[in-house]
């Protein structure tokens, strides 16, 4: 895997870290937000924080699709899973997200047929293999994952599979960013853009950040060097007074994205008028649902779901964490009432949630360079 090894080069990393240190303005604090669970993961997994000067703060935004699912939607999923004829399939982390009364894993322990899959295609295969059952796929994810669901639905349609449906919770990346930037208690210097979402949608959709909000953004890949490089590029923009969309992940991300992927999304999905995001409230035109032509493959049409809105527990501060307003350890229940084994909120459930990442990997008192 030369592709990957090259970018894990520690020596290059140290050189970049030194350049970053040299380029940082003394006494100035920089707050950079990344909006992708994968970036959160890389930062913690490789200890990137250790390599940055103390006055450069990396903040995690609403980039984890599991983290933004409200409890009521989880309950809807559980209701579907409890139906005896249903084989309920979902990605790994979704199984532990607490709804109003337990999570999918609890439902499984109670007898529901809940199975983890790595892709919606696995779920479709289950439907083919079990014609006597109803297979439901809990679709989550940003624009990176939505095309996979779309292609699966098109295949289901083409093959005439009747016992498959999707419970669609796909979301888009731009609306929550706009919502975030309207918040007065957030001071950010710039963004690290989500590399794989951008592979599908391109760099173009992020132009609103410099254009409307005067925030520079650098689209980044997922290796530790990618992230360091992106931070370096961002800080250089700030030092040189530039404000633009830059692409660090040029080896993969085209400016206009993947036209075929966008066509397929357009073909299968339409925008919901609004969708509730955990911690962020209702955001208009931020979620996807299946078009009417695919109603028979839409779990919400095929089955009844409770559709009850459940308020987050009072103690839960996931919203503030998702907006980058507080750090995980600043949440009052972090590490005490809310732990990875007994999570209260989604930020602690998802392995890429800011809280889980910090608890599992980052729980270290660090000595870093102060400039």
């Amino acid at each position: 895997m030369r592709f990957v090894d090259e970018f894990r080069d520690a020596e290059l990393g140290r050189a970049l870290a030194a350049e970053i240190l040299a380029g940082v303005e003394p006494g100035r604090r920089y707050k950079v937000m990344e909006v992708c669970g994968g970036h959160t993961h890389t930062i913690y997994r490789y200890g990137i924080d250790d390599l940055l000067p103390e006055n450069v703060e990396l903040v995690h935004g609403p980039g984890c699709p599991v983290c933004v699912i409200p409890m009521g939607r989880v309950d809807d999923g559980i209701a579907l899973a409890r139906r005896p004829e249903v084989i309920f399939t979902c990605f790994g982390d979704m199984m532990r997200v607490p709804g109003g009364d337990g999570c999918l894993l609890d439902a499984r322990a109670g007898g529901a047929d809940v199975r983890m899959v790595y892709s919606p295609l696995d779920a479709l295969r289950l439907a083919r293999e079990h014609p006597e059952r109803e297979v439901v796929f809990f679709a989550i994810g940003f624009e990176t994952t939505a095309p996979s669901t779309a292609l699966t639905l098109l295949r289901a349609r083409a093959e005439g599979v009747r016992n498959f449906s999707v419970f669609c919770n796909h979301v888009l990346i731009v609306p929550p960013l706009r919502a975030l930037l309207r918040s007065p208690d957030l001071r950010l210097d710039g963004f690290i853009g989500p590399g794989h979402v951008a592979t599908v949608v391109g760099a173009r959709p992020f132009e609103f950040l410099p254009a409307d909000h005067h925030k520079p953004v650098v689209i980044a890949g997922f290796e530790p060097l990618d992230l360091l490089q992106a931070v370096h590029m961002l800080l250089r923009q700030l030092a040189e007074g530039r404000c633009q969309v830059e692409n660090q992940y040029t080896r993969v991300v085209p400016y206009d994205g993947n036209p075929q992927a966008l066509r397929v999304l357009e073909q299968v999905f339409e925008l919901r008028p609004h969708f509730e995001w955990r911690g962020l409230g209702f955001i208009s035109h931020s979620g996807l649902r299946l078009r009417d032509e695919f109603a028979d493959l839409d779990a919400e049409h095929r089955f009844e779901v409770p559709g009850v809105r459940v308020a987050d527990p009072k103690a839960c501060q996931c919203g503030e964490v998702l907006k980058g307003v507080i750090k995980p350890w600043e949440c009052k229940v972090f590490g005490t009432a809310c732990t990875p084994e007994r999570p209260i909120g989604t930020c602690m459930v998802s392995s890429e949630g800011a809280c889980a990442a910090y608890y599992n990997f980052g729980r270290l008192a660090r000595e870093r360079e102060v400039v």
Partner: protein
Amino acid sequence: MAGEREALELIERVRSRPPRFRDAQITMAHGAGGKATLNLIEGLLAPAFGLTELADAAAVGDVALTTDTFVVTPIRFPGGSIGELAVNGTVNDLAVGGARPAAITVALVLEEGLAADELRDEVDAIARAAEAAGVRVVAGDTKVVERGRCDAMYVCTTGLGHVDPRAALAPSALRPGDRLLISGPVGEHGVAIMLARGQFELAAPVESDTRSLWPAVDALLEAAGPSLRCLRDATRGGVASVLNELSRASAVGMLVREAAVPVRPQVAGACEILGIDPLYVANEGVLVAAVAAEGAEAGLRALQGVPGCEAAAEIGEVRAAPEGMVIVETGFGGRRVMDMLVGDPLPRIC
């Protein structure tokens, strides 16, 4: 940063509270070898039996006793089968407890409908593994349950060994400055099981590393006996879980150098696809040794001389702080915490 330090201290206080078993029902996580298993053992089982901890093996006078149940599915996998696992697993619990394995008992729970040939194969596997490990099968039991009540078979082995005088091992014996050694590459068994479950295929197949660890333990005892603090076989929960247990028991910190941990490329690749850190994957033929600094070099050389342990390596060291915490120095130079396993990423692994 004052706020962060305080928050971290509070978390450590919460974590160091005695475990309480508060779950309403048993979930797969309780069988994973991670935090839930620990809670179950220390919160329910050990107190019920009047013990402070429930160890894998324990000395009763000069004799060491251990028991283990094997529920691996499927029962045959690349590199081994449940019978072999059942012998080696129990032999290894004795070995890493510092006892020379002498005899085992074998109890079988068989599923109605199990083919006689399959049973014959497993019984042969048990016999061969016992001979290879130098132990006698001295007693046993057989039960049959209705079709569907167990997957082909479950095996329980109990082992008896003689406490070896060359070392005094205890999980609480680790001290700052001790070195951490590993006897071979990690992740093989867990990945082999995933392959056997048909999750995916690999060009170069991976096999379970199930083997008796007594030769490795014997070599360590001979070369570095007085310097040995504790040995553990890194089964379910992997190296990460074992290091965390030791770190907790000795109230010390640890630093592991990720780049020094031997992992074969096929295993690393498979773990990447599965989204699993090889340090959490079950092994069935790997031990971790905590050795006082003065004995570490001799211990490592002795290990490397044991067939199958050529890739043995020093992977880190014991520190005074942060207490009870295992830190990993990543290949990239930064650091992260390596906590105990939560949940059950690889169920029914052994």
